[in-house]
Structures are given as C-alpha cells and as structure tokens.
C-alpha cells in the first residue's frame, strides 16, 4: 500500500472515482425538492382561505 505524501489531499470513496476533498464542494441536494408544491413564505394580502374557496368554486363549476 502506498503511503500518502504529507500534503496529499484525502480522497472520498474508492478507486478511480474518488474525489479530492479540496475540489469544489457540492452541497447535498435534498431529494424532496422539485417534487412537491411549495407555498410562499411571505404573507398574502388576501386571506388564504378566501383564495382556497375561490379556486374550489371555479373547479366545481367546471365539473
């Protein structure tokens, strides 16, 4: 087994696919994003329940 040089960066994983730690760090990609509908965190100017009811009425009229 080859010994690491003093300043040689450690590798992730094994074999050819290993990455150097000092390469650009990628943040983890949360798996839940992109799969569900997200609502605004800012307050709406209209009561959200009123919007919900308006959408429900429009949908029910189409049925």
């Amino acid at each position, binding site marked *: 087994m080859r010994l690491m040089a003093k300043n040689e960066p450690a590798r992730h994983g094994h074999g050819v696919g290993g990455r150097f730690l000092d390469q*650009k*760090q*990628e*943040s983890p*990609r*949360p*798996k839940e*994003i*992109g*799969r*569900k*509908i*997200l*609502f*605004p*965190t*800012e*307050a*709406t*100017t*209209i009561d*959200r329940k*009123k*919007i*919900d*009811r*308006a*959408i429900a*009425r*429009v*949908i029910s*009229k*189409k049925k």
Partner: protein
Amino acid sequence: MLREEYDQNVFINCPFDAEYAPIFEAIVFAVNDAGFRPKCARERLDSSEVRLHKITELISSSRYSIHDLSRTALDEANALPRFNMPLELGLDLGCKSFHPERRDKSLLIFDSEQYRFQKFVSDLGGQDIHQHGNSAKTAVTRVRNWLRTESGMSGISGGPAIFSRYEAFRADLPQICAELKLDLGDLAFADFSYTIARWLQTHGPR
C-alpha cells in the same frame, strides 16, 4: 434561514412592466410547477425597508436566481438605460463569489439576443446567456431545464407539460379573480404565487 428553504428559493430579477408581464408570470408558474418557491422584490410591501437591503436579502436567501437583461435598453424619456437588472445580477454574482456559504448558487441569465450583452456588460463574456425570444413558452422550457439540471431533481415535468398547465391556469385565473372580486392586476405577487401553488395542488402532475 434554514438550509432547506435556501435550496428551495428562486429569486426572479425581471422587469415589472406590463409588456413583460406574460413572461414574468409564466416564469413564476414554471418555478412553482417545478416544486420551487419563487421570490421577488414585489413580495415585500413594507415601505420602511430600504429597497436594496430587501433585494440583497432575497439574493442571499435564494440558491437559484433568474436574471433577465432583455429589457436593458434606452429609455425614451431619458435616453438612458434602466440598469436595475444588471445591478442585481452583479450583486448576485458578488454574493456567489464572496459569501463562503453561497458558492453553490446557480444563475439563469436571459437576454433578448445572443451576444447582445457583450455590448453593455462585456465582463459577462464567458457566461452562458440564454434567450427566450419574448416567448413565454420558451422561457418556461428554459427555466424548467435549468432547474432540472442544476437541482438534479428527476420529478420535474417537461417544458411543454408545464406550459400546458400554465395555459389551463390562465384560463381559470379570470374566474378565480372574479370570485375574489378582484381585477387581475390587483393580485399582489404573494397572492399570485399562492394562487398558482393552490391551483397546482389539484391540477399538477403529482
């Protein structure tokens, strides 16, 4: 701010004029449909906030940003270009460069024509600038493809499917506004975004 929220936010730096509204609204819809949260300077109505502080906060809290430079043109009244969009793009690039926890930011930059930006911001040479050709449909597909690639998420619908849902939403929107006794133009950004999200819960692909 939670890391998760940062990863979900998409800051939209676009013109707010009526002529641009069809593209802006389609982009907001596409971001929502892809499962992200659109953020925009219009969502904050507090007049006590300094505008630039508000914008820097939005930039810092959004991993993804869309900057549209396509309306950088001479103003007829003043013969000067409106430079808010390039300024905010510069702030975002600065945030990505200098903030150690924001190096993973991803930007989608639009301009009206390929290489036009090199005439007024040549320092952007080397950046991948995209065109939407003033087409809402093209803008939706470009936004969708960028979010899909940059987030690595596989559950995002294709551009044509998202645009088809957008057209259905646009068809329902006047009736939704009528139910709320509002004109379409009266919807604040947060109201518009919430309406899209709620509508997608019953019409989305998921």
